[in-house]
């Protein structure tokens, strides 16, 4: 069987490959959106708050 014969799928190429292409896109879309969701949740680097000077609740007199 030649490649062009294989791709034509007996004249049904558009429908057969279309089905598998849509499926591939759907699977890929799910995986990509999931990996984005996962990345958004990755722990952010923790910054320790830098406090310049001293903060107190008491007013200076």
């Amino acid at each position: 069987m030649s490649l062009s014969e294989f791709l034509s799928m007996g004249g049904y190429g558009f429908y057969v490959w279309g089905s598998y292409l849509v499926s591939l896109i759907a699977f890929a879309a799910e995986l990509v959106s999931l990996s984005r969701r996962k990345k958004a949740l990755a722990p952010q680097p923790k910054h320790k708050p830098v406090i310049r000077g001293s903060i107190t609740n008491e007013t200076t007199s």
Partner: protein
Amino acid sequence: MNLYKYAAPVNFYPLAGKLIPWFAIPAAILFAAGLYVGFFVAPTDFQQGDAYRIMFIHVPAAWMGMFLYVLLAFYAAIGWAFNARLASMMASSIATTGAMFTFLSLVTGALWGKPTWGTWWVWDARMTSTLILLFLYAGFISLQASIDDPRRADRAGAVLAIVGVINVPIIYFSVQWWNTLHQGATIRILGKPSIAPPMLAAMLIMLAACWLYSVAVVLIRLRCIILEREQNAAHLAEVPV
């Protein structure tokens, strides 16, 4: 070992992480094997020519859409009845993948219908009930998204999911109950399947691949949901009173 501890999302999180590769890798291998058998081993159908090869993705997708809905409703019911957070999170996680497979079954069905029936779509029993299944998934997802409190969202979603289960047997038996354009079941629980062995093999391998894929993806999403919902609780626990 106390298995009950894994009912707590925080404890299940690392276990789910360890399980994922055990499903993801076999899924990839079986997709490759199923496509190989489906395109290079299975012969051309004498009635439908090569158009029937759409079956290898269409039938597994349609089955997964139905199975996952029943599983979703089961977990939603457990989460509701026993107030189990993890089960409700599992239901939410399944919804997206189930919707994806149902969407695929409709699109590949249209692409199969056009060359064999001469139409993309008819409002026959099986197709209409499958479309309703997609709407049920969409309704579940959007209902949950519209409620801020996650536990209230779980309960509301559970009601919708459980009521919607009635649609699954309607889809399954629609080809027997009504006179439809859609062909009957290719594989019966009792009796011989009505297709050649390599065709059946390709379809079953693809079905197994879709199952493994679903488990892997649902576990990955479940881990995201656990983090999204419970990390705030973890932060709050750290705030000194």
